[in-house]
């Protein structure tokens, strides 16, 4: 068997490539379709899941203020908890396709304004009740209610009508949206009995594991759901999420064997860990990115030349090397990369150009008073260091950039989206529309760059309802250029998810949608015998 075929096989059996893609590409190597299928089945069997045992994940990003209410999940641990006990209607697969979960079939009207979801039958909640289309509608309704304070409010508020008839849920939108199924994969929208209206933090859904102990900020324990509708998951008898916010402590816990996997490895120590036995470092290139954001409507950042000067004065390659330890890619001042469908590869990369930066700065007519960049350790990992690198390269170009470090305490309330120039991060969204609607459209609550561009808004709406993918790609390309050249976002880098998995864990695949296999690591991995 050729090396290339082996490689394809490995990728396909790990879920990095769809079955159809594999058969097609194997065919190009001269392998018949039937043969390819057999190969794939064998390769998949080679890694047969082992049942039983206790699987533990050590995670950063949990606080004692967390709750089990999925609507309020906003940090890594609550996200992982929701994904472990709950199910959404659909998932986004590692290859960026919709895969059906509690919905079995999706169809839409020609104008993409009315969507029908056929709900899977015979699925039982952890409390023994049967999951129905009414539960789905009640769940979505709860998230549209302001009182639920749901993180998915922005996603569901465009739904004007929801109906449950038999096993069919019909959603009517206020405008066309070709991406609606992707939105339904949002981690807040796990289906709860009765929509979770009575007791949103009950921790009951249809997932592979039932919550047995919830100690926020400390430890969340689960046991196998014996009546799970999906037999391809839930291999361990028990799973646990242990909150270890300190980087060094988390690594130590993994090295001493107390946890089997961990999220958010400090990229700087990866080189130092090389050669240590018993585990492997995994890296997944996703859509998350680190940003320095300027308010386009506040002096001195209301000056386009000054914004351009700062964009040209940042050394992106140095940041990827020093802040991400090479586990990432340079950004191009718009929040989209090749991990998104319909990404335009032809947009030129903005270089680090101190001379052009100095010229642009001169042209801006800025008075030379300090330009203050506010930053906190918690803005993103390595934020204070990245700001210092930025200060160095900007000062070299004659731009008087100064740093003000703020305490982590209150940073997201008092600084981010308030101060005119600060550091922040974005986790990315499954589709371009969602990313742009969340933070770049004029009316977005989280428009943290105060970017207000009529042409951009118009294109966003047009692209949302556009079913012709070629036209849609051109629209997204124009939007990217608008943000890149005119916007207030300085986007030096896209960060990878860097994680560590112990050698005794089987079933790990690369899924860059979110960290820890898009939150599914505990239900899909197993402990090797």
């Amino acid at each position: 068997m050729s090396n290339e075929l082996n490689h394809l096989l490995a990728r396909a059996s790990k879920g990095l490539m769809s079955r159809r893609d594999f058969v097609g590409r194997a065919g190009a190597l001269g392998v018949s379709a039937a043969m390819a299928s057999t190969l794939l089945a064998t390769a998949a069997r080679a890694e047969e899941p082992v049942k039983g045992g206790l699987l533990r994940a050590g995670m950063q990003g949990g606080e004692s203020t967390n709750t089990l209410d999925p609507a309020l999940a906003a940090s890594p641990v609550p996200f992982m908890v929701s994904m472990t006990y709950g199910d959404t209607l659909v998932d986004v697969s590692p290859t960026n396709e919709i895969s059906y979960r509690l919905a079995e079939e999706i169809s839409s009207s020609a104008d993409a304004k009315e969507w029908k979801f056929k709900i899977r039958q015979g699925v039982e909640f952890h409390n023994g009740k049967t999951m129905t289309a009414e539960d789905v509608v009640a769940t979505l309704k709860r998230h549209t209610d302001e009182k639920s304070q749901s993180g998915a409010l922005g996603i569901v508020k465009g739904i004007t009508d929801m109906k449950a008839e038999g096993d069919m849920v019909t959603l009517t939108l206020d405008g066309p949206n070709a991406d609606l199924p992707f939105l339904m994969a949002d981690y807040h929208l796990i289906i709860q009995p009765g929509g979770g209206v009575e007791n949103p933090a009950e921790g009951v859904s249809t997932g592979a594991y039932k919550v047995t102990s919830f100690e926020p900020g400390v430890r969340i324990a689960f046991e196998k759901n014996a009546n799970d509708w999906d037999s391809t998951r839930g291999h361990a008898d028990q799973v646990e999420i242990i909150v270890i916010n300190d980087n060094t402590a988390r690594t130590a816990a993994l090295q001493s064997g107390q946890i089997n996997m961990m999220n958010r490895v400090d990229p700087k120590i990866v080189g130092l860990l090389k050669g240590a036995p018993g585990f492997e470092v995994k890296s997944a290139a996703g859509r998350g990115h680190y940003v320095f954001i300027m308010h386009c409507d506040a002096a001195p950042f209301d000056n386009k030349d000054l914004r351009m000067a700062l964009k040209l004065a940042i050394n992106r390659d140095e940041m990827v090397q020093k802040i991400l330890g090479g586990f990432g890619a340079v950004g191009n001042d718009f929040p989209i990369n090749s991990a998104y469908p319909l990404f335009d590869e032809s947009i030129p990369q903005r270089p680090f150009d101190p001379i052009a930066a100095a010229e642009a700065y001169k042209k801006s007519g800025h008075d030379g008073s300090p330009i203050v960049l506010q930053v906190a350790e918690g803005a993103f990992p390595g934020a204070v260091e990245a700001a210092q690198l930025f200060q160095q390269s900007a000062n070299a170009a004659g731009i008087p950039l100064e740093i003000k470090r703020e305490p982590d305490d209150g940073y997201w309330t008092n600084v981010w989206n308030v101060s005119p120039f600060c550091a922040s991060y974005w986790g990315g969204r499954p589709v371009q529309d969602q990313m742009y609607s969340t933070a770049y459209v004029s009316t977005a609550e989280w428009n943290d760059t105060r970017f207000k561009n009529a042409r951009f808004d118009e294109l966003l709406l047009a692209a949302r309802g556009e079913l012709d993918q070629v036209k849609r790609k051109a629209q997204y390309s124009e939007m990217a250029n608008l943000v890149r050249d005119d916007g207030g976002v300085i986007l030096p880098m896209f960060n990878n998810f860097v994680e560590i998995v112990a050698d005794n864990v089987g079933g790990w695949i690369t899924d860059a949608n979110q960290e820890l296999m898009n939150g599914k690591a505990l239900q899909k991995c197993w402990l090797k015998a």
Partner: protein
Amino acid sequence: MHPVIKLVVQRLALGLLLMLAVSALIFFGVEALPGDAAQAMLGQSATPEALANLREKMGLNEPMLWRYGHWLFGFMTGDMGVALTNGESIAKAVGGRLGNTLFLAFWAALISVPLAITLGLVAARYNGRWPDRLISGITLATISLPEFVAGYLVLYILAVKLHWFPAMSMVFPGMGVFERLSAIILPVIVLVMVVLAHMMRMTRAAILNVMQSAYIETAELKGLSPLTVIWRHAFPNAIAPVVNVVMLNLAYLVVGVVVVEVVFVYPGMGQYLVDHVTKRDLPVVQACGMIFAAVYIGLNIFADVVSILANPRLRHPK
């Protein structure tokens, strides 16, 4: 009434008054922080109507004094209200956390206090000679490292490299006592390192100070052995500063171990409080502040009473 009893009663009464003053300070101090609880809860999504609704629901529109009274009464009857951030009962959450913190502090104190006093006595007995220098040198080195450095080093050497003890000190309900004890070995080691030097050095200094007094010379001239002199005559007179330092360190073991909790993933009060301070979860901050204050004031009264009882001149006033 015997003057000592009078003094003790006075101290107790003062402690209660102090507690009341602290409660006012905590309540109004926290209230004076910029932004109110409703705003903190809603964060970025705060619309004026939502804010008004929530303020009404949380009773933030009532007069401040009334709310203080209500809060204080609730606190005294064991009702600390619910956390804003996750709606859980504070009393329930704090109960478990406080238990963990006291458990850790108890074992750290049980080892460090007798050890520190013994080492202090030995160092004073051999003042200037090698046991004194050895003890002083070692305790000095342990106190000279920032807590998190000491924590990381202990973690790396004893857990990661040697695999002697677990790296995480996770404890949870349903664990046996022995399991718990083995889980907290590393943090106890670090805490003992941190508090030992201070207490030991104070013991040594206080005793050396007393050793210069005339009555010690008398005792020495009587031909008593040096250790007897120190134990019977010098130590009782050095007790006031020693008890004060011990009390300070005990209070530290209960209220100040945030960093150690972070490094060893120990679910104690410090971590809980810091999490809620960051989220501006004011009822929790107030409740924790009150508990810490109560612990501190309690230990304080204890130290004062011991000082009174230990001082012969106060015990038998002229």
